[in-house]
């Protein structure tokens, strides 16, 4: 008897369509596939960039050309053909937009389908949204309100035009061009992204939010996010990602840089729901992202992520705890199902004294997926009294999935305290039975148990996101007990 016959729910689940798998028919201004200096010059000129930006891109391109695409121990995929990707795709309605009402109706419909209708957002939740569709930021709301506090929240393209000195000073300062193959590629070809600047002492009164979507077929998304929190400031930033359903793989290679100056605090939350491919592993997004933040004295960076999508995820949001007393946090839930592969975790680099970091990682593996936690905790020789606590748990739903834990713990200071714990177990049959006896359906039971298991992480998400994340978890795992 096959697993599907044994469990009709499993069968039903594997046929479940990707909820956000629709494409938007709008005229796109798209470059033919291929990558060379000419393409980079074209991207730069289309965006009307200053000379220094072009030179920076070209330097990055040369660095990238000299690099080799990495091979990873626990991820198997067919490497993208970088000459078959189109490196620029912008919705054609490119006249500067005065208000939300001027946004292309098709685009608006897309946003509605995603459940992030801007009016709704504006009216109800007080979230400022920067919506990035295929790399170009379409519209940004709440700008005026933020401007009063001196907060800049705009697209990267706009920032390059309007605030070149800030961009020039910080871009590449946290994730150097040559950091890795994908950061070099991104530096050469990035088309847009979000830029955020919080001036000294300002507390951003609302959650800043961006939605990323890969829309156009055969486009890679290379967005670049730069977030600068000046001394004593605070910001909470949300990022949501979806992509339409396609047969071919789509590449997503973003770079996110966070700069937290003395006493500043940045909360960065991600709910990632890129298209994971179908049950056989066809299609889906390759999510190769470099996210890193640097903390000055007593600064704090907190990464929270709920990852349910993408065919292949390779992502380690990291903190460089440079300043004394700085704090890094990483809270993650990663769900893999069907043929998904995820290799995700964090790096906590303790350089300053009295630096603290916390890592809570909850992996959930279903279907035939492979889910790995990979994390580095490094205590440098000058990091006196550094502390780290890591807890990495894995929950297995089927006997055809895998759960792996690869922590690297490097300690070079005798005053450090580093603690790492990890467990791997199967979802509790007695827990499921208990729930069923109380009248819950199997789907509800699994949803409830998994949400309970991931609670520590979900609780770190801002309210609006937490609700969505809980729903996503349940949807991603319905009927997936083997």
């Amino acid at each position, binding site marked *: 008897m096959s697993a599907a016959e044994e469990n009709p729910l499993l069968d039903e689940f594997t046929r479940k369509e990707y909820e956000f798998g629709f494409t938007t028919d709008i005229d796109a201004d798209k470059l033919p596939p291929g990558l060379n200096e000419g393409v980079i010059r074209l991207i730069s000129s289309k965006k009307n960039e200053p000379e220094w930006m072009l030179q920076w891109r070209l330097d990055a391109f040369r660095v990238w050309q000299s690099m080799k695409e990495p091979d990873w121990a626990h991820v198997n995929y067919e490497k993208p053909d970088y000459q078959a990707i189109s490196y620029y795709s912008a919705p054609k309605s490119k006249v500067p937009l005065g208000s939300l009402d001027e946004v292309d109706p098709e685009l608006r419909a897309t946003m509605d389908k995603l459940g992030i209708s801007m009016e709704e957002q504006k009216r109800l939740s007080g979230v400022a949204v920067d919506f990035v569709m295929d790399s170009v930021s379409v519209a940004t709301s709440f700008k005026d309100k933020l401007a009063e506090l001196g907060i800049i929240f705009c697209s990267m393209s706009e920032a390059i035009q309007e605030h070149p000195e800030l961009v020039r000073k910080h871009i590449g300062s946290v994730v150097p061009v040559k950091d890795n193959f994908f950061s070099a590629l991104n530096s050469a070809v990035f088309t847009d992204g979000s830029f955020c600047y919080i001036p000294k002492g300002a507390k951003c009164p609302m959650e800043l939010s961006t939605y990323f979507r890969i829309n156009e077929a055969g486009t890679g998304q290379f967005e670049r996010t730069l977030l600068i929190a000046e001394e004593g400031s605070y910001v909470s930033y949300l990022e949501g990602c979806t992509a339409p359903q396609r047969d071919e793989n789509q590449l997503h290679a973003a770079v996110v840089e966070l700069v937290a100056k003395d006493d500043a605090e940045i909360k960065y939350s991600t709910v990632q729901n890129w298209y994971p491919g179908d049950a056989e592993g066809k299609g889906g997004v390759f999510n190769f992202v470099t996210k890193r933040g640097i903390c000055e004295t007593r600064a704090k960076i907190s990464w929270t992520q709920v990852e349910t999508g993408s065919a292949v995820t390779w992502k380690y949001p990291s903190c460089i705890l440079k300043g004394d007393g700085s704090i890094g946090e990483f809270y993650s839930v990663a769900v893999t199902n069907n043929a998904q592969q995820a290799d995700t975790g964090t790096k906590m680099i303790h350089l300053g004294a009295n630096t603290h970091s916390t890592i809570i990682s909850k992996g959930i593996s279903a279907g035939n997926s492979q889910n790995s936690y990979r994390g580095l905790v490094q205590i440098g020789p000058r990091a006196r009294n550094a502390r780290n606590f890591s807890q990495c748990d894995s929950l297995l739903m089927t006997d055809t999935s895998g759960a792996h834990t690869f922590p690297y713990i490097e300690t070079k200071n005798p005053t450090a305290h580093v603690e790492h714990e990890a467990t791997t177990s199967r979802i509790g049959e007695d827990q499921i039975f208990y*729930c*069923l*006896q109380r*009248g*819950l*359906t199997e789907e509800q039971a699994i949803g409830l148990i998994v949400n309970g298991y991931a609670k520590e992480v979900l609780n770190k998400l801002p309210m609006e996101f937490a609700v969505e994340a809980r729903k996503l978890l349940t949807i991603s795992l319905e009927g997936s007990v083997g």
Partner: protein
Amino acid sequence: MLKIDNLHAQIGDTEILKGLSLELGAGEVHAIMGPNGSGKSTLASILAGREDYEVTQGSITFDGVDLLELDATERAVAGIFLAFQYPVEIPGVSNINFLRTALNSIREQREEAPLSGKDFLAKVKACAQLVELDGKLRDRSVNEGFSGGEKKRNEVFQMAMLEPKLAVLDETDSGLDIDALRIVAHGVNSMRGADRSFLVITHYQRLLDHIVPDFVHVLAGGRIVHSGGKELALELEEKGYDWIVDAQATEQA
């Protein structure tokens, strides 16, 4: 209301129930007593629909419905409640959220409208009072870090919330001190009514001082070997099980 006829059940290759028959009328309280390993908890698990056991012979009907055709959820919806001997811990899921999900899931399957937040909370308050459940326990994760007594009280609390037609209490008295026992019994007694039956499984007579049964059955070797009124419990307490079990053995021989 509940009719069990010639029930045979096994786990793996070991037969545990060997022709058990039992009938419960609406509003009745039946106690099942018996030595360790006689199959008491197996009976409770089978009634609730645990899949580890295989029923090889016999039937169970509940309100005229073939119970063995229903899965665990459907049985709960039909009105069967099992108070677990070892209540399960579910980390990260608050008691209150758990109950609300359960209650509304049952209501949805019965095609009833979900309970409003206000009504739900009023009900929680009333039921919690019944078993003197601390408000803090309602907000804590299901059974996590509860003491033995708190877990059992929580089971009765859930029973009160879900208002079953048939409540099966599996060794609810085990691990309780006398005060907790009284509280649990009070909770059960106040739920007794014309359309609610109880099957109280216990090893000791003392619970039956507090929850007075209409009938007492002795389960031994996978069958009901003796039935009687509430006075049977006292007799068992005094003389142990051996005389019945031995008599049965002689009879069979």
